[in-house]
């Protein structure tokens, strides 16, 4: 049985605790990277991570891109949507097809 986690700044994720996700507030990138590594090893199938934190630990996130679990999913934080999540989807389109022909014009 797996669990789901939310990783990010406290202000962005504290609400997720109420709906049953486990929250891991972090403040600096190093701590975030370590926490993500730790979560990947533990029984977490899904890790929601705020875009602002994710942008600082891209290397760690890329490490888990090829493995089936955990699924690392970007969510917008309280400070606003940076578009990194959408960008991620576009990136996989680009990787698969060669160029983004699906969402190229629309944002």
């Amino acid at each position, binding site marked *: 049985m797996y669990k789901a986690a939310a990783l990010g700044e406290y202000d962005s994720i504290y609400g997720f605790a109420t709906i049953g996700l486990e929250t891991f507030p972090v403040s600096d990138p190093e701590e975030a990277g370590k926490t993500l590594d730790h979560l990947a090893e533990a029984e977490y199938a*899904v890790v929601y991570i705020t875009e602002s934190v994710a942008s600082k630990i891209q290397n760690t996130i890329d490490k888990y891109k090829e493995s*089936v679990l955990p699924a690392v999913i970007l*969510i917008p934080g309280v400070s606003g949507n940076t578009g990194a999540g959408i960008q991620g989807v576009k990136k996989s389109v680009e990787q698969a*097809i060669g160029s983004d022909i699906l969402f190229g014009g629309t944002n």
Partner: protein
Amino acid sequence: MASKQINPTRMELNRLKKKLATATKGHKLLKDKRDELMRQFMDLVRENMELRKKVEAGIQAANTNFVVAKAGMSEEILHEALMAPKQEVYIEAGKKNIMSVNVPTFDVKTRTADANDIYSYGFAFTSADLDGAVKSLADILPEMMKLAEREKACQLMAIEIEKTRRRVNALEHVIIPEAQQNIRFISMKLAENERSTNVRLLKVQDMLLEKKIQEA
């Protein structure tokens, strides 16, 4: 490409012909695999994008609600209210095979079935906005889980498609032309050898004939 030395022998020719046949068959199969993967990926990624937009909008709305809720009460009370969550999400993770790509499937279970268990606090000291905020977040949880499943599948499939595409291209543009060229080189070389043998035999016959004429 005769860049490396190849033996112009019949054995080598046979070997190369077999290799070419395998490569052509493999190329066709991989191309089919790529096309099918691509077709499924397209559907999946479209769904992924839609879900993502929905979830992002939902989370943003929930965040706004939380900010409003936070403004209406003291931080200590808010922390205290959310300190001991009642609800917990469990995920039953399965595997699904899409064209030999293993993608996870998430079956979401909650610890308690009661939908009201998201409110982990008494209503006396918290603002009504907090209830709304928590509710709005709970409402998008199923979609968030679906997004996680789809997005992971998309990422894994994108990687697989890239690999397959590289293989197809390598076969199409390197392995198959190389084998074809080598086969042509060997068959031409063999034909050339045969001709030179013929000429040599004719020449020997000629010489023998001449010798006989002189003796006579």
